[in-house]
């Protein structure tokens, strides 16, 4: 399955901005099961400095600065991504993997191997997920028991969050603490992912944040409008001996070909799509438009047009 993804972010400033320094986590990853075929980052006004680095977590980060006065900043990431979930590790989750209990998993985490050492950092506190509360721990305990399978428990946790939490974009911002989210049981994908991560870490297991996109479909019979998608986030749990398995609590599903992965981190703070420091004064407004649709080559497009005519 090949997707074309357009992620356009526009900042309008009330007053002139003298200069700004930014970083973008917008480039989809390449790994077995996902291949980045084309990628282009358009920035307007043209940046003075633009440099791509690989961060601590292995994500590609683009640093850029704009050093002339501007009142508007537009960042557009265009990519073509080939997704073949079947090829991915843990594509089909084996019974063996499903049978690992919490107790067994915790024991295995004590036997140090390079992979376990790497995974274990995702048990520790991170910028947005720290000093995990009793409420979260208790919420997690309802699904996680010593002798219960980690996979089953995580799957149930995902379902519970999907059922019990209300999607409400007006409730939270990027900096809403998870304690408020679990209290109100409202939020967006990022909040749900972070609550789930906190729950899993409270049990002593590694969990990480996944930032990316999901393909959405228009109501039946309607044409899909441009820019109605959004950047998305979900979480991943580490099952010792098998590796990372993704769960999407916003959509109550294990991500497959509709999910495109951009970056892994401990939480949102490690991988925001865009962040920056600007020098100027006054307010700014933000517009984000994301569009994901199956890629059609020019041939396909022509054929389609001919059929329609």
């Amino acid at each position, binding site marked *: 399955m090949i997707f074309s993804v357009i992620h356009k972010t526009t900042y309008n400033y009330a007053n002139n901005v003298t200069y700004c320094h930014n970083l973008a986590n917008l480039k989809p990853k390449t790994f077995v099961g996902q291949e980045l075929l084309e990628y282009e980052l358009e920035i307007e006004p043209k940046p003075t400095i633009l440099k791509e680095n690989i961060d601590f977590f292995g994500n590609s980060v683009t640093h850029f600065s704009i050093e002339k006065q501007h009142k508007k900043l537009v960042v557009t990431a265009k990519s073509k991504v080939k997704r073949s979930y079947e090829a991915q590790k843990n594509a089909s989750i084996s019974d063996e993997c499903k049978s690992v209990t919490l107790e067994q998993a915790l024991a295995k985490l004590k036997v140090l191997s390079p992979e376990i050492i790497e995974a274990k950092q995702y048990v520790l506190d991170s910028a947005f997920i720290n000093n995990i509360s009793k409420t979260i721990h208790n919420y997690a305990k309802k699904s996680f028991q010593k002798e219960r399978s980690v996979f089953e428990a995580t799957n149930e946790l995902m379902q519970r969050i999907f059922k019990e939490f209300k999607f409400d974009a007006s409730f939270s911002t990027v900096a809403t603490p998870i304690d408020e989210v679990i209290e109100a049981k409202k939020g967006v994908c990022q909040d749900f992912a972070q609550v789930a991560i906190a729950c899993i870490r409270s049990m002593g297991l590694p969990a990480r944040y996944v930032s990316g996109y999901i393909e959405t479909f228009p109501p039946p019979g309607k044409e899909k409008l441009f820019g109605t998608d959004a950047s998305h986030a979900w979480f991943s749990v580490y099952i010792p001996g098998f590796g990372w398995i993704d769960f999407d609590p916003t959509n109550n599903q294990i991500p497959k070909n509709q999910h495109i992965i951009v970056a892994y981190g401990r939480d949102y703070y490690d991988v925001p799509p865009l962040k920056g*420091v600007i020098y100027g004064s006054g307010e700014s407004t933000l517009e984000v438009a994301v569009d994901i649709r199956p890629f059609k080559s020019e041939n396909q497009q022509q054929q389609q047009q001919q059929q329609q005519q």
Partner: protein
Amino acid sequence: MTKIPITSFFSDYFKDFENYDEVLKSDMTINPNWEKLLTNFSKLGMDELNKKQDDLDWLLAENGVTYNVYNDPNGLNRPWNLNIIPFVIDQKEWKTIEKGLQQRAHLLDLVLKDIYGDKKLIKDGIVPSEIIYAHRGFLRPCHQIQYNTAQQLVMHSADLARGPDGRMWVVNDRTEAPSGMGYALENRFSVREVVPDFFKEINVKQPFGFFKDFNDLLINSAATNKENPTIVILTPGPHNETYFEHAYLSSFLGYPLVKGNDLVVRDNKVWIKTLKGLIQVDVIYRRVDDAYSDPLELKGDSYLGVAGLLNVVRAKNVSIINPIGSGVLENPGLIPFMNSICKYFLKEDLLLPQIASWWCGQEKERKYVLENIRKLVVKPIDNTKREHIYFCEFLSDKEIEALKKEILAKPYRYVAQEKISFSTAPNLTKDSLEPRKVMCRTFAVAKENSYSIMPGGLVRVAAERKKLSVSNQKGGTSKDFWVTNNANKSFKKRQRFHWHHSSSNIFSGIENLPSNTAENLFWSGRYLARTLVTARYIRMVLNQMTNSEFNKRESDTESLHILYQSITHLTSIFPGFTGKNKEKAIENPLEEIAIVLFDKTQMGSLAHALSSFNNSYYTLRNLWSKDIWRVFDTLKKDWNGFDKKDHHNVQKLSKLLDTIITKLIAFIGLIEESILVDQGLLLYFIGLQMEQAIMTIDKSRALLTISYNEDVEYEILESLLNSHESLNIYRYSFKSYLDIENVIKLILLDDAYSRSLKYQLNRIRRDVFRLPKRTNDAELTTLETTILKACDMIENAKSSTLIQVDENGFTRTELEELLASLSDLIHNTSMSLTDMYFNHSDEQIQLINQNYTN
């Protein structure tokens, strides 16, 4: 010399406290290393020692040596304490310590490179990953950054204390932005100045070679402009606890002291904002904490750093000393593993002993800690937020239970250490010597492939006799640290600190003046002028009040009321003597005058001007000479020492103002001869003249634009000239009865009189035209046209027109209009100056607000 006089000093030394001591052994014999020094003490005698201690306290206070304590009820700038009795270590022992310190710095350098590089220590199981990954000082954005210098950890400090086995033990490592070397240097200078006798026949190693090595390190670490690198010292500002030291090192080393907003990242390089424009910075000696250094990649809400800095480091376009991220080594979690690390990297044992420590992340160790907690000291692995260190023997059962719970919740975040009784050394306290716990901070800087160690360092002494912990934050005092060489009998001549700067000072010349320094100098000038003019004016009013009490003339009462109101106009502290408040204020004028003088919260008050000046003054402290400090210090003492109950005592107020005015004048005179115009005095002059001009205008508007009857007018004119210190000149120039036209000629329109408005405006114009041009453009800038217009306006003014009274027989509209326009023009001059040269007006804003707390 017999031993009796020496030990007599120690008669009550151990009266209620027995400890392992540096000088006195339990059999009451003296450590031979201290003998010579104690002999020198005995020669002075106890009385003399006490006197010298007073001299030392005085010297430090006069030199403005301070240490800030956060949330200190006594306010900022607590005086630095230095006990007159030095701390002595013999060269032979020091050599061993030096080797140990070099090994430790080398080892920690390897650890730092590994943590941010290949992570072999973690992968090979030498160091548990949590000790690094759960430490707040581990900054993931610094992962895999490559540096210019051979060493990554180029500065290292350790706190040492003597353990029960008689060896010096490492208690802490300081790597993030180690403080203390400036204080150590100032301690040495001070002791040498006050008690040169102490050094008699004792060979004390001097730290100057070390400072040369430090300076070489700064120069050699530059990757860009190697020939003549630009080096700056980055400080969080005057509120930081060791700000004194930042300013001290800035003037000692000759590198500008800058704050984050003086620097800017452009074109992937770091620049300093100067009057002329931007100059590339090659090396930053950093005293801002790691996490605050770059709001783009680290703490987003930090205003102390420079956005984009880490990316410049990545591009190797700037060197930062120590590199951002080195705070992860301030990590007691590493202590239990240091010996294994040493074997792993160097295949040898650690030379310096450390305190036995248990990391609670390991099961066996945790069990031991929980079972023996009462005997232990528990610390979190990162002390970067000054979390509590738990001395468990002093905790209640409830507190112990709470601590145990915390440890169990996140065992990997805690380390427990054995409680050690470290040695004491003699401290002079009120007529006797007392044993106090001491801790020695050492300093290492990278030199070639090893480290140069400061001979000695900073010794800190516990605040009270029985205190366990030693820290300047918690009070306490310090000592000069002597490394003595008794074997070498040749006494070297005093070494002096001087070396040839291989680079010429890039910051000479007014165009290269850092904008922030320029701005502070400008405001220093303005606040000083405001302080002086206000003080003189109030003094004049107070004198008039006293006079009118004797005379009781009608005209006096009226003129006095006019003067009261003019105070309100001059200071803009409304309603004051105007509006509805008028009657009440005039009834009890001293009430209102006390506000104008002492209410710091009122903008325009004398206290406010003085305290605003004080802020700029501290920010610029590297520019001021010692004499300047002393004069200002006594001025502040007079001001702050004025008794509140005398706030309504006219005589005492007048006397206070007399003293303040005299000292201000001395101070202003000193400034003018101690700083070069090119060093920034030009900006100070512009500020000073501008404020004086503004206040001359305000006074004239309040007193001259309304016509009064002859008697009152006479009183008013006399008062105005008095407050302007111009009465004598008036008499000399006009030899006449006071007359409005002549007064206007003298204080507004005179060409040559330095207190006249015209002179002041022309002076501002001259100085403004001496400022560096931002562009090569020949066209006049807004700044230039504005001041030119003001000068033209006053040039064309005629006294005969200005004195015209309107048909209503009341106001001098021409005069009022001229003064109002000039006031606006000066205000605009100030604004364009700020826009053009200071340019700190841009706010730093996060694109998306994503702060976190933990």
